[in-house]
């Protein structure tokens, strides 16, 4: 065992409980790691040294008193900077929230604190979670630790990278169209989007309310379960929160896949998907069959329209969700003198980046009188069709599998000027958001260029247990132990 920063959450927890090291030691390890990696990767926007040190001290005091609040006690965790943290700057990577310190904690933050987790800081993202590369940040891009010429994916690229390189033991992202799973795939970590409604959105700065869901990044499937256990559950402050007991997420982690019926999504194994990615996915499907699963072809005929529907629904919701950023009550306000309307307009033009403005305009248009039926209304119909496709598929199979992303990590700047090409990187992840179902990305190897390949497991609503069951088997079969070049503290700055 080398550096503490490379431990999984569960192993770190064992060490804490055995008295091998303290929470303060773990925090020191990730802080030291960040000191090396941040200059190259820019995963963090804010490191809360003081708050983290206090939390680590409190966790160590708890252990000393024999108090144990569960698997995250004393574990350093990073948060995507679109989750409100009381008194700690929360920007959603936007100029419009520059310097804004929320007066309240998001529900997930409260739950992490109550579980004794140590919050290290806030991570970079595409502005308001709109993007797939973490290049659309007002504070500069985050880079991929496997190759700093590549993007880490997005929008939760910062969180993915902290977990990948050990500047946190795990992290939270938000997934609206793949914003956890896609960067997880591109950085070689486990990234999971829960069933819509099992993790509270209260305090998550909304992008598209009907699609947004907070999910964990981790370095193992079991760690993912541990994190989801803490952040999930009914929240009376979120009206879309499911008021029912949460499933036993980790109940079947060790059961293997014998007897399970697994569907390979035909639509994601052909056109538009990199052949190397298809090959890797197919190889893993075969190994699952070898492990006793019945692997069949499954079809989701409507998913060819899913991307278009998503890029109407998400912008429509965002055009309304982002209306509150007007310079009146919080955040950036223009210095330009003028009428109230001019003040709002200038504030928004100055505060929002180009991708955010593009989506607000697109969404405003899609909801406008005379266009609603053709755009937003039609997109909602497609959403229903996609849901029906999934329901039909789950009539035959327990889970669906596919690549997480059409390609491995692409180059910085490669798609920045071509929004449509960028949107296509969410091709395989968007359908689960439209359906509200859980899905996870597990790293299964490296491509010829040495970049990680992600493997997606999708399950029906509240089917996290079987999803994790299959993901755990994928993890065992892949035996993916490679770590990013920058994921060791011994690396010398280039």
């Amino acid at each position, binding site marked *: 065992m080398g550096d503490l920063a490379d431990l999984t959450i569960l192993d770190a927890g064992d060490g804490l409980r055995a008295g091998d090291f303290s929470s303060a030691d773990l925090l020191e390890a990730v802080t030291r790691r960040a000191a090396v990696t941040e200059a190259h990767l820019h995963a963090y926007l804010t490191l809360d040294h003081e708050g983290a040190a206090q939390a680590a001290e409190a966790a160590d005091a708890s252990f000393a008193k024999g108090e144990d609040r569960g698997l995250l006690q004393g574990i350093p965790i990073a948060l995507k900077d679109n989750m*409100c943290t009381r008194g700690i700057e929360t920007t959603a990577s936007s100029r419009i929230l520059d310097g804004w310190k*929320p007066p309240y904690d998001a529900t997930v933050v409260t739950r992490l604190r109550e579980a004794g987790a140590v919050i290290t800081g806030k991570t970079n993202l595409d502005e308001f979670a709109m993007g797939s590369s973490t290049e659309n940040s007002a504070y500069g891009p985050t880079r991929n630790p496997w190759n700093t010429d590549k993007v880490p994916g997005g929008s939760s690229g910062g969180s993915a990278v902290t977990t990948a390189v050990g500047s946190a033991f795990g992290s939270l992202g938000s997934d609206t169209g793949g914003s956890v799973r896609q960067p997880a795939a591109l950085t070689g970590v486990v990234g999971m989007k829960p069933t819509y409604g099992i993790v509270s959105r209260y305090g998550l*700065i909304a992008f598209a309310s009907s699609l947004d869901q907070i999910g964990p990044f981790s370095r193992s499937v079991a760690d993912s379960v541990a994190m989801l256990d803490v952040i999930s559950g009914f929240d009376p402050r*979120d009206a879309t929160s499911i008021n029912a007991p949460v499933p036993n997420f980790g109940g079947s982690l060790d059961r293997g896949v014998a007897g399970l019926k697994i569907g390979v999504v035909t639509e994601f194994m052909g056109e538009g998907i990199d052949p190397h990615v298809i090959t890797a996915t197919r190889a893993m499907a075969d190994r699952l069959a070898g492990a006793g699963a019945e692997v069949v072809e499954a079809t989701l005929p409507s998913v060819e329209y899913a991307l278009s529907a998503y890029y109407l629904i998400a912008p429509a919701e965002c055009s309304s969700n982002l209306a*509150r950023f007007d310079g009146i009550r919080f955040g950036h306000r223009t210095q330009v003198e003028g009428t109230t309307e001019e003040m709002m307009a200038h504030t928004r033009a100055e505060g929002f980046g180009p991708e955010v403005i593009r989506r607000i305009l697109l969404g405003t248009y899609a909801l*406008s009188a005379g266009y609603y039926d053709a755009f937003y209304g039609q997109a909602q119909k497609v959403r229903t069709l996609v849901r029906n496709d999934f329901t039909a598929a789950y009539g035959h199979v327990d889970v669906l599998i596919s690549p997480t992303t059409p390609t491995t990590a692409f180059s910085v700047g490669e798609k920045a000027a071509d929004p449509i090409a960028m949107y296509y990187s969410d091709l395989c992840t968007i359908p689960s958001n439209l359906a509200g179902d859980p899905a996870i990305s597990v790293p299964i190897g490296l491509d010829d260029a040495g970049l990680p390949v992600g493997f997606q497991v999708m399950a029906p609503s509240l089917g996290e247990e079987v999803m994790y069951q299959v993901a755990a088997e994928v993890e065992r079969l892949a035996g993916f132990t490679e770590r990013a070049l920058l994921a060791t503290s011994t690396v010398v700055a280039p």
Partner: protein
Amino acid sequence: MSGWEAVIGIETHVELSTHSKMFCSCAVDVAGPPNSACCPVCLALPGALPVPNEKAIEGIIKIGLALECTINESSLFYRKNYFYPDLPKNYQISQYTFPVCEGGKLDIDVDGTTMTVGITRVHMEEDTGKSTHIGGGGGRIHDADHTLLDFNRAGVPLVEIVTEPDIRSAAEARAYGAEIQRIVFALGVSDAKLEAGSMRFDVNVSVRPVGDEVLGTRTETKNVNSLRAVQRAIEYEIDRQINVLETGGKVIQETRHWNEDTGVTISMRIKEESEDYRYFQDPDLLPLETSAEWREEIRRGLPELPAARRARFIDAGTDAVTAGLLVDDSDLSTLFEDAVASGASGRAVGIWLTGEVVAYSRRTGTPIPDTSLTAPHLGELTGMVDEGKLSFSAAKEVLIAVMDGEGTPGDVAEAKDLFQVSDSGAIESAVESVLAENPDAVNKIRSGETKPLGFLVGQVMRQMGGRADPKVVHSLLRKRTGA
């Protein structure tokens, strides 16, 4: 307006007097220090989410049931998108298709005639904050130097009641507004104070030639904040539109603003494109389900409505006008109910309450509950008048003393020696002496004139110090003079 017919629809906004706001747990305290009753939700801070207030939903269902609406089993919240500084989210959570209540009606009485106003829908929404425009003189945002914002009112539950275009005159509109106010107050869901802004009206007015089926172009007038303003604004708007049409002009579909001081409506010059609210279903809120059991439980808990109460008061002996006056005043109606329940004459109690009791309260500036008057007092007083123990004028004197706190009607009448004398012996001797003193009058009566009889009654009453029962005096005199 001869040759023209007005077509009027009314939107009534009612602020519900729930303890907490529509979508957060902030107290409803509109009058508190500015921005003292706010939280991340009603200030629309990033990340905050709305959660519906069940009490408010109960309130709107009560209103819907009182207006004989269908209560939808499942209703939807929508976002109404527009930018305005006192609208924190820059969208208002409201309803569009599937409001909580649809398709009701309300019977109103206009100058003794009953008419029915159709209710299109009753929907739930949230109020905005309050802007105070400083400088510029107009009290409007466009020419103000700066604007102060108070978000205490932001998110207060607001119910909107929309009528069919069934109303044809300003008087009908006013009667409708008054009846809605009574109902909402009786339901206990709002303080229904127009002067405090907890009830407000928007009036939609169009005119068309009598006999035309097609509706004319309508205007919507806002800032109509009293029943009198409803009447005046509509009268003004009808006259203005007729004048426009008669002089060859066209009525423009627009929003207008009623100016109470100048008594005119003015165009708000809202640009065409800003009227597109881009309604879409609010993804933060699930469909609102109202179970049949819940709806039935609310129905069973409904209080008596003003119309039913008026009918009951009329059954108890009052006339329609008195019943209306009593029902409109909860102090009067409580006294009335209690007095009648203990056996007093409804007719008599109604007259005393709406006459002398109200007059006393106005004259002295004392609210009725602050006087010493009780329902048993009213029963005792009207009973004594009925039994002939007190003359009407004596009873009035007794009532005033009772309200002043001098004691029960019986005690007061005793102390002031106001009881009528019904003892025929005493009256007979007075009659005899009056007859003896006025032979001329007696002779005139005997020759067929009736006028002097009244004079003789007056003379006897004077001798008796006003305490004789005039009926007894009258009958004795008739007997003795043969009239």
